[in-house]
């Protein structure tokens, strides 16, 4: 479980998170939604231990990510950045192999190579394994970076807007893949999403944020109501049902 207690974060004089407290249960997919500037990515970075909050604390499965060694933290929580740096001449297999760094520190063993192969298979990258990252399409590249995060083999995966630059088909495929991979209970995924319908379709829980605060948190079915969405996004919505799923349309 992730426990966040009275978390505040400021960048210079600007306060981005205000006294945030929440619990994220293990298992499945939890989506962070909210308008631009709500503090979703900042909260995700604080959860990962890569940002130091100005006040409050984070515990991931009882561990303070700021108090442990970097490689130890990276064996508990993996973070996919919004815009990772592209290194030319880096093959997909090499990129995914970097996910094992916290485990081998530069001396890979058989189990590391096995995990890389499993990650390549899980994200349908086997055929692209020897291609360089620079030659891939946006969707393939995103899959490769998520496979790297997956290969890190952490109980918690934090993904910052992984659907950016993906067309609807690739976005659906990626969410379906993540949904399938999170079903075994071994991995818990916390994901920042701008697409409310992706959250409605694939997330088990939703945390809605606005102005650096958590406005609502519940199962996706319970949280996605017109009054809640109107409060979060300051705009009216229409909610429809399609094959048992909620579909959200901004009016």
């Amino acid at each position: 479980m992730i426990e966040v207690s009275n978390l505040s974060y400021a960048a210079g004089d600007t306060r981005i998170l205000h006294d945030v407290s929440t619990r994220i249960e293990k298992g499945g997919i939890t989506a962070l939604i909210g308008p631009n500037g709500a503090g979703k990515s900042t909260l995700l970075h604080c959860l990962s231990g890569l940002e130091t909050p100005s006040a409050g604390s984070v515990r991931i499965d009882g561990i303070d990510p700021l108090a442990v060694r970097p490689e130890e933290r990276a064996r508990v929580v993996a973070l996919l950045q919004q815009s990772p740096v592209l290194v030319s001449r880096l093959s997909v297999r090499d990129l995914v192999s970097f996910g094992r760094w916290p485990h081998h520190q530069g001396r890979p063993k058989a189990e590391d190579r096995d995990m890389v192969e499993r990650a390549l298979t899980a994200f349908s990258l086997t055929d692209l394994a020897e291609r360089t990252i620079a030659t891939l399409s946006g969707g393939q590249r995103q899959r490769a970076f998520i496979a790297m995060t997956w290969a890190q083999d952490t109980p918690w995966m934090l993904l910052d807007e992984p659907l950016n630059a993906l067309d609807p088909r690739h976005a659906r495929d990626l969410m379906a893949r993540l949904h399938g991979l999170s079903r075994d209970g071994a991995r818990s995924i916390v994901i920042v999403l701008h697409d409310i319908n992706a959250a409605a379709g694939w997330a088990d829980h939703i945390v809605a944020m606005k102005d650096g605060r958590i406005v609502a948190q519940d199962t996706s079915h319970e949280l996605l109501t017109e009054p809640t969405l109107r409060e979060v996004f300051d705009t009216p919505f229409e909610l429809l049902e399609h094959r048992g799923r909620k579909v959200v349309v901004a009016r």
Partner: protein
Amino acid sequence: MAERRVLFLGLGLLMICAGFLAWQIRAPYGFILELRAAKLGALVCVGAATGAATVLFQTVAGNRLLTPGLVGFDALFVLLQTLLVVALGGVGAAQIPGGLRFLMELVALAVCSAALFGLLLRRDARDITKMILTGVILGVLLRGLAEMVQRMMDPSEFAVVQQAIFASFGNVDNGQLAVSAMVLLASLAAALRMAPALDVAGLGRETARGLGLNHDRVVMMALLLMAAMVSVSTALVGPITFLGLLTASLARRLTNTHRHAVLLPAAALIGALILVAGQFVFERLMGAQSALAVIVEFFGGLLFLALVLQKKARR
């Protein structure tokens, strides 16, 4: 494949070194061999140090167009040489034993660069761009200071400074070589030891930290090793701004890999190969003296322009 190319580079360097030493050698063999070996040692040290240092710098800077010269190393060297001549006079500066003068320059360059990086990294570790810009501005300041002092100098003393600051492989002191070689070998060994960490650092600060790398420590270590290598090269023969760019670009193209365990030795070997082969062609085959540095700068400068125009400042 990439490893095999590094092996071929090593073999090529050995062959060209043998040719450099033995080509049209006449009696007295011992004396001529000693002269040639000293020059060869300097060429290999400078080429290897410049190549490896540039790869290190480009990795931590995250940019394939930057070279250590941009953080003001050559400018600092020129200022040190100028101040030395001002303080001791032309004759006095020339009388300092070569080994001692080299050690002084080495320590001064390493201390100044470590102080610069330490100060900037302590203030804002993540802002490599800020550090580089500060380095460029510092380079301009140091160059301006050196020029100002040079304008106030006696013409004969200015001639002494000019001789010291213009890259030349013809006036290397034998006493400097042992120290340079030891510093270079130790720095290269340390850089190779941290090669896997440098690979991760090449992914960018945020991704590398996410993977559990102590990125700031790796960057600081890489910058200190780079400072030691550039100090070796600059203090030995003077500034050669574009050799590093030429070497690092060729190493990346030839090995086609991101792995520093391959890139660092490849860049070191290519740097040495360019200088030894170039000097061999100019000195032995064409009978031209002191032309190599100018040619290397010319082609390095052309490559820089080509890279800028092709917008290949990618990772």
